């Protein structure tokens, strides 16, 4: 595979919910090892876009190639794709009937078909990586929000995916827990993981982003490296949005 092949390539993507158009002619590429941060007002289509990347939503027009797989509604390879594209949700979505360790091992054991011993070893490694090795035997409900989200990140890491998608991973958290999750994500970024992150944490974005994306009303309005994005974005709408969220 040539070095230049992007891991995600979206070309002229449209997405409709009934008659409502949630994505309009979206073009975006994400290269191997690149860290992309997407921001924009509520309802602008950020979640919809990254959910298309792992087939949780299906786009209606345009071409989407992720990890060499052409993603479309009846793609047979969608499960293979999901094994290489991890996702972390705003609401964590941990499995409440399983312990932390079981949450981390069920994917590797049932989907990747590795042995239980190997899966547990791997799970403990990534629990260490998110700094909660001592919580392995608890149930999700016994953990704080920040800890739950770190378990969710570890669950995704255990699948040893090539890309990780984050959909506002800190916006359901109490303020004092946001940093413990962001710290883990910065470490992850520094380890070379390819990441696509929907977030409004601009301090975090400045630290890790290679590429900033601003969306509004289903369109990508601005794509720029962070230096340019935060100082002199081309679009006035992007400027206004940044002014608004950076004020606080």
């Amino acid at each position, binding site marked *: 595979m040539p070095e230049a092949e992007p891991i995600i390539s979206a070309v002229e993507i449209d997405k409709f919910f009934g008659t409502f158009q949630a994505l309009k002619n979206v073009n975006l590429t994400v290269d191997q090892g690149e860290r992309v941060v997407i921001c924009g007002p509520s309802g602008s289509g950020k979640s919809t876009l990254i959910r298309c990347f792992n*087939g949780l939503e299906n786009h209606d027009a345009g071409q989407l190639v992720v990890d060499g797989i052409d993603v479309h509604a009846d793609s047979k390879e969608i499960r293979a794709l999901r094994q290489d594209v991890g996702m972390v949700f705003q609401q964590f979505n941990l499995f409440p009937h399983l312990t932390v360790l079981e949450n981390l091992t069920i994917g590797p054991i049932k989907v990747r078909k590795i042995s239980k011993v190997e899966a547990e070893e791997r799970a403990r490694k990534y629990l260490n990586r998110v700094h909660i090795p001592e919580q392995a035997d608890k149930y999700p409900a016994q953990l704080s929000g920040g800890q739950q989200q770190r378990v969710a990140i570890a*669950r995704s890491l255990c699948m040893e995916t090539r890309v990780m998608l984050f959909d506002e991973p800190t916006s359901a958290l109490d303020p004092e827990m946001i940093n413990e999750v962001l710290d883990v994500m910065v470490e992850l970024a520094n380890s070379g993981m390819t990441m696509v992150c929907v977030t409004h944490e601009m301090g975090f974005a400045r630290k890790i982003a290679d590429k900033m994306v601003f969306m509004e009303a289903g369109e990508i309005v601005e794509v720029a490296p962070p230096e340019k994005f935060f100082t002199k974005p081309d679009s006035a709408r992007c400027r206004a949005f940044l002014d608004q969220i950076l004020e606080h």
Partner: protein
Amino acid sequence: MQRAPLITRFFRSVPISVGLYLFIVTGLVWLAFTGSQAMGYNWQWYRIPQYLYRLTDDGFEWGEIAVGLVKTLQLSSIAFLLALVLGLLVALLRLSGLVVGTGVAIVFLEIIRNTPLLVLLYLFYYVLGPVFGFNRYVASILCLGVFHAALISEIFRAGINAVAQGQWEAAKSIGMSTGQAYRYIVLPQSVRFMLPPMTGEVVHMVKSSAIVSVIAVAELTTIGRNIISDTYMSFEIWFTIAAVYMVVTLILSAGVSMVEKRYSTNS
């Protein structure tokens, strides 16, 4: 302390409900007794125990009613297993999102729900039985199984729908197939929602199994009828049979509510 909850608690407390229950039963028994006096009924309760158990020269021996009870429990449990499997299948079809699947499931549900159980039993025994060559016992099991499958499939469906959508998304996003997501993630979580109505269905099954006595399948109610036609002790026998059903269903309810409690403290 408020008045209303106090009253509610008063009526819900165990001694009061047992007392109330005994009062009603006593009333009924008294009604039956005076009524039977008036019609000159000859009570022969002393002849009843031999139908429960006997002590013969060979030792202890179960009586007809006890044997009938075992038959009823056998019939109900086989039919319930069938209903569980079939009910899950129908629920999954209904939820499959496939037009054909949903259609088949809805047609099945509507047919079963709108047919009286007795008519369904006649259909299975007099129509499907000869066509497919199965006997009255098999016809009863199939009929009860199919009838309860319709009710149980709705319990499954509600239980599955009660699991948050995010659980599906999380399961899919780690690469699970729909089958794996059901098996490892969704169904285990929906058990908690399904246990209480499922208990009701178990009890319902034991009770509705009595209907197969109309095609003379050997079970508790049929045996009751047979004893009466030999002895004419209809009052005693029907009281006894009703009591046996009640004891069984009460024990079942108590058992399942224990399981429920254990389950809810575990998770």
